[in-house]
């Protein structure tokens, strides 16, 4: 395997929450991301999936240092980003960009589309002439499917799908090596979703960018990603190449997650075997002992309550954290 672009090693993110019990305030440690490790190669797309509160967005933000890491390392081309001082980090920052879920909220309403897309250029390339900046902005707008004549419009004059294109244009204008997409299509209608998915796929292919694609929509992740990481309550429970993960999921949570996605075809949907999980996600403030999934797992037994299963290889590039991964299925 070639050297990885990004290597995340036992990354921890904790939030201290103030508890209201008793007279004196006490603090509870919320482990939003708990010792998560993975690597990402150049030009590779990694999907991160899981339900609300599993830590998928927090993990991405910790990699980009938008939230501080409590422990672990984030190696970018061998250099630990968590150890860099602010100036050194800012110089690296142009190499990884992020696209957010809510396209309108992520754009400054008082800036025109052109100014929004040009801002990273002005920050990192102050030497560029006005004409050169404008040419680059127009070319990027065309690349994401926006008409360059709309350069002077404000975000509210665009539809949701077009705003997401502006967000993508801003993220790719510096030609980053890594693009992090945090639920980039979840706020969009199905027909617009398909446009943005096609766009991201083409950009990733044409520019050879690596991508981290965060989504709760498994079908979209399957369509776009080379490998998939499954998170549950802040812990990595399974990591495998996409085809393998969907064909032979080993973790009972991954199996349930895949089974729960309805297929838009009555001929298929009505004959699928459903694994309906019991209950809700436990509170991340009081996670179960041992394996976090054991309270809802159909396979759980005494061992699962005692110790957290380690993430172990089940095949060469397929790792899973389950005491019973060999027995399940």
């Amino acid at each position, binding site marked *: 395997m070639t050297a990885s672009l990004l290597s995340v090693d036992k990354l921890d993110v904790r939030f201290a929450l103030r508890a209201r019990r008793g007279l004196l305030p006490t603090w509870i440690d919320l482990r939003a991301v708990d010792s998560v490790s993975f690597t990402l190669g150049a030009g590779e797309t990694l999907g991160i999936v899981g339900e609300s509160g599993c830590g998928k967005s927090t993990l991405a933000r910790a990699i980009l240092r938008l939230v501080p890491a409590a422990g672990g390392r984030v190696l970018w081309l061998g250099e630990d980003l968590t150890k860099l001082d602010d100036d050194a980090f800012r110089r690296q920052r142009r190499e990884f960009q992020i696209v957010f879920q809510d396209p309108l909220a992520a754009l400054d309403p008082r800036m025109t589309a052109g100014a929004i897309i040009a801002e990273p250029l002005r920050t990192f390339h102050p030497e560029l002439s006005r004409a050169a900046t404008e040419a680059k902005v127009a070319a990027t707008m065309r690349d994401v499917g926006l008409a360059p004549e709309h350069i002077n419009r404000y975000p509210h004059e665009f*539809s949701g799908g077009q705003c997401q294109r502006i967000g993508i244009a801003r993220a790719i204008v510096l030609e980053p090596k890594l693009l992090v997409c945090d639920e980039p299509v979840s706020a969009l209608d199905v027909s617009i979703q398909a446009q943005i998915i096609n766009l991201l796929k083409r950009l990733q292919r044409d520019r050879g960018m690596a991508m981290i694609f965060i989504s709760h929509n498994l*079908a979209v992740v399957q369509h776009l990603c080379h490998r998939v990481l499954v998170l549950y309550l802040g812990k990595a429970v399974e990591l495998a190449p996409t085809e393998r993960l969907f064909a032979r999921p080993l973790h009972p949570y991954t199996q349930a997650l895949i089974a729960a996605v309805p297929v838009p075809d009555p*001929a298929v949907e009505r004959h699928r075997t459903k694994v309906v999980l019991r209950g*809700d996600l436990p509170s991340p403030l009081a996670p179960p002992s041992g394996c976090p999934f054991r309270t809802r797992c159909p396979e759980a037994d005494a061992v699962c309550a005692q110790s957290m299963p380690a993430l172990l290889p089940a095949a060469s590039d397929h790792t899973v954290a389950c005491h019973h991964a060999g027995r399940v299925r």
Partner: protein
Amino acid sequence: MTEPLLAIQGLDVRFATPDGEVPAVRDVGLAIEPGECVGIVGESGSGKTQAFLAVMGLLAANGRASGSVRFEGEELLGRDRASLDRIRGRRLAMVFQDPMTSLNPYLTVSRQMTEVLMVHQGLDEPAARAESLRLLDRVGIPDAAQRFDHYPHAYSGGMRQRAMLAMALLCRPALLIADEPTTALDVTVQAQILALLAELRRETNAAIVLITHDLGVIAGLADRVGVMYAGALVEVGPAAAVFASPRHPYTRALLGSTVRLDRAGTGDLVAIDGQPPNPLRLPPGCAFSDRCPQTFARCLGERPPLRDVAPARAAACHLDTA
């Protein structure tokens, strides 16, 4: 021929706004038979929710409905609130997307449920409490007896939606309208709620209108499907037939742009170019004409009506008559 359970004819919904009158629902006609489950699918702004809020008499103050909505033989449009209240909540119930905003945060779940039975069915409090608790347990609230007197904030999202379903079913309605009942939920919880809806349907034999933007949600449950675009029904038919061989280009495009988990394609999705029209400036012909790959001259000038194209199937497209 006997009258259907719900007969909607020529339903128009318009909203008065500072920019002019916005047509949200245009000439919708649909009949729903007892015990049947009809899925209504469409993207945001397609009018799917407003059409059924009009059925319930729950339009916002600036909204006005015209046409005809007959439920169990009685006209619902134009009724005053008191006479509507005798029907809705009892024979006709609705659950909404966001269960937190539909439950009253100041009242315990037990109080909200028992009130329904005391008002509509004249039960005394102990009887109403017993029946409410039975239903809360039936919809799968864990430790229902303990949670019965809790406030809604103590319930998780999935539990709130279960409580909403229990509340809607208290009076054994003949028709349940479920508006995006699982959209706010995680996928494993969505699977629980959909399984519950299917069970409740078998038990109560209530007809269900399932409004959603998710074709997958409809695929498992609906007998028939209605597809809405820009305020109008563009296709109606049996679910299996509509999914297998859609007649309207919009239905086809919607199915093409949906990513399917069971088809690991890596090719491009069939995206629909452009976006739905602004309801204030609808094109004079077919509302889908500016995005449709098969548009021809007639589509630009003449609006296609919804008409029968095969037994039990209807579509609003000029291609079917060309």
